[in-house]
């Protein structure tokens, strides 16, 4: 309880104090959105080509695949699946990758990887 109170109090204090005692002198250049030093061109709320979303979705799919493989690879030696030991773990990953490959072939043949 004491700890939670301390954390809450210090958080509030930090925000409040810096808000109270800071000095702000905004200029036109300072209030610009940060674009790595460049002057921004136009508004940030632009319409993107739908192709970018497709690429993003495909990226997520194959990214998650690797995210899933990492812990599997780390824990591989201690896995005992399907009553077959590490062979079972290998089989399960093979099934997973095979299903993904089907998806990959599908995406490729349907032309989702072509930009135009």
């Amino acid at each position, binding site marked *: 309880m004491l700890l939670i109170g301390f954390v809450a109090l210090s958080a509030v204090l930090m925000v409040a104090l810096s808000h109270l005692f800071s000095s702000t002198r905004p200029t036109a250049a300072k209030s610009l959105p940060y674009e790595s030093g460049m002057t921004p061109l136009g508004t940030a709320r632009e319409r993107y080509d739908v192709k970018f979303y497709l690429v993003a979705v495909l990226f997520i799919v194959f990214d998650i695949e690797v995210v899933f493989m990492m812990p599997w690879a780390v824990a591989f030696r201690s896995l005992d699946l399907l*009553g*077959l030991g590490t062979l079972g773990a290998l*089989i399960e990953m093979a099934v997973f990758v095979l*299903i993904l490959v*089907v998806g990959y*072939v599908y995406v*490729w043949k*349907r032309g989702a990887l072509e930009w135009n």
Partner: protein
Amino acid sequence: MLLLDLDRGWGLLRAMAPETLLTLWALALLLDAAWHHRDSGAQRRAGWLALAGLALSAAATVWLWASGAAPAGLSTTIALDRFRYAVDLIVLVAAALAVLLSVEYLDREQLRIPEYHALLLLATVGMMLLAGGEDLFVLFLGLELMSVSVYVLAGLDRRSPASAEAALKYFLLGAFASAFLLYGIALLYGATGSTKLQIIARQIGPLGLLTHPMLLAGLALLLIGFGFKIAAVPFHMWTPDVYDGAPTPVTGFMATAVKAAAFAALIRVLLEAFSDVHALWGPVIWWLAAVTMVVGNLVALAQRSVKRMLAYSSIAHAGYLLTALVADSMAGAAAFLFYLLFYTLMTMGAFAILALKGRGGERDVMVDDLAGLGEAHPWLALAMAVCMLSLLGFPGTAGFIGKWYVLVAATGAGYPGLAAILVVTSVISAGYYLPVVMAMYMKPQAHERAHAGVLVPRIAGATLAVMVAALLVFGVWPNRVLDAARAGSHAFIPRAMTAAVTPLPPAGAP
């Protein structure tokens, strides 16, 4: 008697044979769609292939049922009980009907979607996992597999803004509901130390969790998540718009199979894991059922569009199914299975007839547009009338027997109030089902050629004829299906010990 060790590959493979076969089939269809997505004949062929896959999966399910497969020890991944098989078969039938009713529809509406059948099969796999999952994670996986496929199916008609709106709305609210469900699972895991239903059931008593806040919050979040999927009031807001915007055969599939699978999962979770804390969730389901029946039926009264009216009718029917669930008994589970099967047939039938009458998404078919259909297309009007009367629960149709057993289960378990609400709201529902029948038979056609565009294609017509015949035949001789439903409900006997187990009266008693 076939003992399957679910911790060994071979045992698990056999226990999951229906799902595995269907998954492989769906992947093959997906590859087929990748190569043949330009010619229109390929879509028809994919439809027949999908039917073959569904039949194969059904055969595997029947094999499991007939072999009396049982798990060696606790089944902690997938259930091997008749409830799973019964729901699997209902879901497979619903998917097969969706395929049969959409073959000609897709042609007519010029919908060239090569992935349609693969998505339909994948959604069915998700539903089967929902029906059989013994682990909250398996259930969640099934729910997502089903939902993601159905989001895409809802947005099938890419030329229609309404269809896109339906898909987006369904996706956003569905993702929201999934988050609730997942958070609920996390809290339940925190409270009981397991995500496996049977272990959760065994942990609640010994750990003294009956009133533990974490368990309560987890259960509440779980109920909210499922409430969205089954479209129970107050989680029903998405239903009318999504059902309205989606292509009609897909709407039929959503209103029946998706609801059936989510209901099956809810029943399994509540009766297997939380039967001991019936006092906690019983009142919640009671109120959900009552409010769903009242709101669904009352709002349906105000609808002029047939498609929206059917959407609200499906909400009302979720209330009837929840009533069967409140009973928390074998009789309730049996009534649920029986009702579910015929609800599937009558709702699918109503949407299919609507698809024959309407064009371009069927959103503009008003009740008055059906005027004089009885004269122009007597058989089609007869089919619609049977579906409407069955949805109403008219004696002589399967809908009546279904409602009767829900009532028996509810009163037997000591919920006369809920039974009374069911009867009263059923009477109210006559106020929107009967105008459809009256419009078809008692009003003249708006003009000479009002129904000139209505053609009944062969496959859809034959499918409809079989469905309507089933509604009538099983409305008079329900015994065999009732026996199967009762067998399916046996899955829950050992666990629902605390519940009031009341035997059903002899079949055909009404």
